[in-house]
């Protein structure tokens, strides 16, 4: 060592300094990556019960806990201030309370949601009709009482079901006599839209949100979305759609279903009969860019059946998967390429078949 020249000693010292600097730089970088991994790579989950259903919020990004709480608060506000027809003080309840006698001016958002839904009522030729609130009240699927209402009561209210009698003048909404608005068919989708608006202003990288089975994929990579197996248990699925950045909504005949005198009843009412829809379908899943639209279309398509739904879906640039009682599955547009069936009781059939 002592034989080293001064020059060599300096160069060696420089080398050591360079190595230390490099080590420090790498240490800082790796600390950052580990921090980033822990905070951004893991999904933060918040499960809750809002709007009478299970809400699952999965977030990646920063301030996840606060953002999840904000979303749940927002949905609670949506239920208790705007949309529920069960809560006496909501804007919707106030509109309904003036049925046949006057009008009520809700806030701008509620008005917008009513207008958007009415547009799809019109486009679907009344397959979706939000003026059937009195029939929903009669059936009262949420109560758990599970009784078919007397036919004379259904027949009394049926003639009043007509969304064209919901009038909007300036900002005031009025409904006809013996009529009531029920936003149940679109409430979960609206909740997804509200969550989307909130997320845009937050430091959330990606989000997967389910409001009672209506799903929002916000800024995600490919997500595997299972479609509930219509005749299976609540956690069973019959296939997987691989999707990103869209809304997904399903209407099925298994939700809030009950049996009376050997006949099965479910919660999707046909606005033309006042009774649950009775066709060959067990569920319809709609994929599009908007929550309200996905929800509204899934209900409308369930009422319309496969053939009559195609044009409606085209009009809204939406795609759908139809499942029939015999286990045949039809996917519109290119959705069959994104669908993997995982249950051998189901088979994909051609669009024409």
């Amino acid at each position, binding site marked *: 060592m002592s034989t080293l020249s001064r020059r060599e000693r300096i160069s060696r010292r420089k080398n050591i300094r360079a190595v230390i600097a490099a080590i420090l730089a790498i240490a800082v970088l790796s600390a950052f990556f580990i921090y980033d991994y822990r905070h951004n790579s893991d999904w933060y989950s918040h499960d*809750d*019960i809002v709007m009478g259903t*299970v809400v699952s919020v999965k977030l990646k990004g920063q301030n996840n806990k606060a953002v999840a709480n904000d979303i749940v608060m927002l949905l609670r506000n949506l239920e208790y201030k705007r949309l529920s027809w069960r809560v006496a003080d909501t804007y919707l309840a106030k509109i309904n309370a003036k049925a046949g006698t006057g009008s009520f001016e809700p806030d701008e958002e509620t008005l917008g949601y009513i207008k958007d839904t009415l547009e799809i009522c019109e486009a679907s030729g009344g397959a979706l009709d939000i003026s059937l609130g009195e029939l929903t009240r009669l059936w009262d699927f949420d109560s758990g009482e599970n009784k078919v209402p007397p036919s004379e009561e259904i027949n009394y209210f049926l003639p009043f079901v007509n969304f064209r009698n919901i009038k909007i003048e300036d900002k005031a909404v009025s409904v006809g006599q013996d009529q009531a608005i029920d936003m149940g068919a679109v409430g979960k989708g609206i909740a997804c839209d509200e969550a989307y608006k909130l997320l845009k202003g937050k430091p959330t990288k990606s989000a997967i949100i389910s409001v009672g089975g209506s799903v929002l994929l916000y800024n995600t990579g490919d997500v595997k979305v299972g479609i509930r197996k219509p005749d299976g248990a609540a956690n069973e699925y019959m296939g997987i759609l691989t999707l990103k950045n869209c809304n997904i909504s399903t209407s099925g005949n298994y939700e809030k279903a009950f049996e009376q005198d050997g006949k099965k009843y479910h919660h999707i009412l046909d606005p033309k009969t006042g009774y649950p829809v009775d066709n060959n379908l067990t569920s319809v899943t709609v994929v599009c860019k908007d929550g309200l639209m996905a929800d509204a279309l899934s209900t409308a398509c369930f009422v319309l059946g496969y053939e009559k739904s195609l044009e409606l879906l085209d009009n809204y640039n939406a795609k759908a998967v139809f499942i029939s009682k015999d286990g045949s599955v039809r996917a519109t547009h290119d959705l069959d390429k994104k669908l993997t069936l995982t249950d051998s009781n189901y088979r994909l059939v051609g669009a024409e078949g």
Partner: protein
Amino acid sequence: MVRLFKRADFYLIVFLCLVGVFSFVPRLFDSGNLTATVSRRGEVLYTIDLEKVEKAYTITVDDRSPKVEIMVKHGEIGFVKADCPDKICVKTGMLTKPGQSAACLPAKLIITLSGKASGHKVPDIITY
């Protein structure tokens, strides 16, 4: 003679390898075991590693109505009793796979299962 590696380069390479190994440390804490979370309003009440459960037991949650009973077994969890009329949570049955969930709406309780998904056929979320 031109040396390909200097001593400093060697240290650097060893260090980089160590960084590589350590960046996986967080993953080590995440066992990937089938884990159940019982929560209410986003607050986690119980976290149970179902693969470490040897003897079955029940958890009673009765701080608000209705009173519910949750059965915990090796690799399984579910609501087994509920003092409410519809018993939707009990009808959901036992949960056994990651991603499954069961809820008691009146008691505001939700059980969800997480864990390493076995294969590509397990969905991230279910639409219904």
